[in-house]
């Protein structure tokens, strides 16, 4: 088709519009309705950290080996432990995780030999203060308790 005829018949415009109108069908809608509908994130999603507890006896799985703290590039994990004089094992006392510096690289969960520390699918991590980003052991074990904004 000669160029002038193409232009006269607005072929390019019609072709372009066809592409546009083909995607008008509701099944092509990709918008996520986030606050109303919570999106499903992937199973391996690296989100909020969690310190797993043994479901049978409620004790922590963490053996306070400090490997996560060593692996962390940002040095944001502090593991506190005392040595139990009877069993001669280290026992976890405190565990602090500074989420404000975390880049969710996953090196800490890779380092954990007992799968105690895990990055979970929870992604709603906002808080009203900087201190709220520093998670202690209780928060890591029980998960965050978001306070709704009114």
């Amino acid at each position, binding site marked *: 088709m000669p160029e002038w005829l193409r232009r006269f018949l607005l072929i390019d415009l019609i*072709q372009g519009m066809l592409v*546009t109108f083909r*995607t008008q069908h509701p099944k092509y809608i990709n918008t996520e309705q986030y606050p109303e509908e919570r999106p499903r994130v992937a199973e*391996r999603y690296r989100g909020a950290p969690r310190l797993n507890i043994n479901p049978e006896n409620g004790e922590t799985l963490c053996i306070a080996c400090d490997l996560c703290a060593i692996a962390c*590039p940002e040095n944001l994990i502090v593991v506190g432990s005392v040595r139990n004089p009877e069993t001669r094992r280290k026992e976890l006392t405190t565990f602090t995780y500074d989420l404000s510096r975390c880049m969710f690289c996953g090196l800490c969960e890779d380092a954990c030999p007992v799968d105690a520390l895990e990055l979970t699918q929870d992604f709603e991590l906002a808080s009203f203060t900087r201190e709220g980003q520093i998670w202690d052991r209780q928060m890591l074990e029980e998960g965050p308790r978001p306070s709704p904004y009114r």
Partner: protein
Amino acid sequence: MADTFLDAQELVLNMGPQHPSTHGVLRVILKLDGEKVLGTECVIGYLHRGVEKIAEHRTYAQFAPYVDRMDYISAVSNGLGYCLAVEKLLNAEAPPRARAVRVILTELNRIASHLLWLGTHALDIGAITPLFYTFREREEILAIFENYCGARLTTHAFRIGGLQYETYSGFEEQVKRFCDTFPAHVDEYETLLTGNPIWRDRLIGVGLLTAEQCKDYGVTGPVLRAAGVAWDLRKAQPYSGYEQYEFEVPTRSGGDTYDRYLVRIEEMRQSVRIIRQAVERIPEGAIMAKGMKVIKPPVGEAYVSIEAPKGELGYFIVSDGSIHPYRVRVRPPSFLNLQALEVMAKGSLVADVVAIIGTIDIVLGEVDR
């Protein structure tokens, strides 16, 4: 430098650093004579985070997440380059299965990077629609990344010596499904843009860069290939098993913005071709090389570069035999490509500067590091 700009005949205009079409925080000082650009000066460094200094204070494994944050559009490629460089120092190689998965993810990342470039570049020039379509397809790629490694943008997908994560069930199917649907979407973009008279008028003959100028400035990647040099590190110095795959290196001869657009469109199709071949025959076996618990390369130095979506991405690592790198130098493709802006923009119109900045495909996280 500043006093030469105080000429009454010329108008000095600041473009950026908060200008939407500079794709980040690039500031360009334009020296204008009416609409005509007499000269440009780039002011960069607004996003400088000192990545190379950070590297000296991290272990080899700990530094890997940081490289994702340089070119955050193609984090997977950055990670691959870094892992290959350290593996070179260690004289180790990732197992075949890891290499195949690496190729698939890197090529997906190349498509994602080109899609983001295409959408924003078209948006700069005035075509709003392609942005929504390119982001729709990019979303599919990011979903694959998220399923594979748990992050969409700063993936940290690879580890030194191989992979940390085994592929998930349904990985091959999802990748194949993407490969089946994607070429039709590329046709859609081409319907909207390639023959579009406005698109052609805005791009053809804009931002010319010859092959000699490219080499002189160290420009690599699609910009170099659009100037007629069929040079692609995946072909020239294959890494990670690229020699097993059949693909072509698209080139054009004009060296203008339109040619760069066509080169990148064709690269996306070729990437699909590579992914198809790779996903058909992912070997079984280990995904991690042996002896990668403690990464402590012997004293030495190595420069390893890969073909990132933007061009040659190189890592020059000096090891002093400890677990920390003594020096990590990143050779960012965007940094050297951006330098050629001064020759590309000289003599063009102000409106074309936007098109030229877009066509270089810069990511300021990588320029500034």
